[in-house]
């Protein structure tokens, strides 16, 4: 069940989840069922011209690290004064807001695009919108504010589009998790067969 703005504010008030900074209820960042988040200054554009021709990556390979790949082939940019994303470019970015969803809160979230940007051809994630309970939560450190949401910003349209720090870039939708996740049920989770489970092919998001 999707939470209304009132239920989101109630969940924040009872500390079932945390958003920092959180716009005040009733501000223009809210809709009846979602909350707009803004783009942080740091972005990482993928520049296809910097990549080896026909470069192949294997996410199933042992020791595959996406971050290592990205660090090797991209450079950080600061979009405080704007960054023009050309057609077909993928840019990694982050929200300025930090989210914390304790495991016990039974709330999950989805990050979705804004229709105003979608009309220009701008998407903000690549089919991976789900934010699970436990995101940004460290039970040992209650003072930890939470994690920003990483965005995969992709220009599908024909225009150059300016990305600027602070622009509303996505919206966050909260959903109640119905029921209790299976946890600690020995029959379900007992380690089967040999002690070392066999590697399995990587699942896609």
């Amino acid at each position: 069940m999707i939470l209304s703005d009132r239920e989101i504010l109630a969940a924040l008030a009872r500390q079932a989840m945390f958003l920092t900074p959180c716009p005040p209820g009733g501000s223009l960042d809210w809709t009846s069922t979602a909350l707009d988040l803004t783009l942080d200054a740091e972005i990482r554009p993928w520049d296809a011209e910097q990549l080896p021709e026909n470069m192949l990556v294997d996410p199933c390979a042992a020791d595959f690290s996406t971050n290592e790949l990205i660090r090797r082939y991209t450079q950080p940019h600061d979009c405080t004064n704007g960054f023009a994303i050309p057609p077909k470019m993928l840019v990694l970015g982050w929200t300025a807001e930090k989210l914390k969803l304790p495991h016990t809160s039974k709330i999950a979230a989805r990050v979705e695009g804004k229709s105003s940007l979608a009309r220009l051809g701008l998407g903000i994630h690549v089919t991976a919108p789900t934010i699970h309970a436990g995101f940004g939560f460290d039970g040992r450190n209650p003072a930890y504010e939470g994690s920003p949401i990483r965005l995969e910003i992709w220009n599908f349209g024909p225009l150059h589009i300016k990305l600027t720090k602070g622009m509303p870039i996505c919206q966050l939708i909260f959903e109640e998790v119905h029921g209790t996740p299976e946890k600690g049920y020995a029959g379900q989770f007992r380690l089967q067969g040999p002690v070392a489970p066999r590697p399995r092919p990587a699942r896609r998001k």
Partner: protein
Amino acid sequence: MAQLLCEVSEGLRPAEATVKVHRLDGRAEFLPVDRGMVTKAGRKNYLAVGLIYLDEAQEAALIELPEEADSGANRLWVRRDHVRLLHESLNS
């Protein structure tokens, strides 16, 4: 809640880290996390994770990562001695 032994390297920005953890079969898993999710204890680093199940007999633990790993995994079997329990959070 629990913490999982991890190795930390640079992320894509100063506030982010790339974390490497080991599955029970020894294979490495990588994931990007906010640096606040990592706690340093002496020379060791620990990642905040969810604890799903402890198999004391097999000296293994099933944990849930705070972010999907680069392999696509969300839950991993790991070595029991790589896990620090914060509270007794297992259902009995």
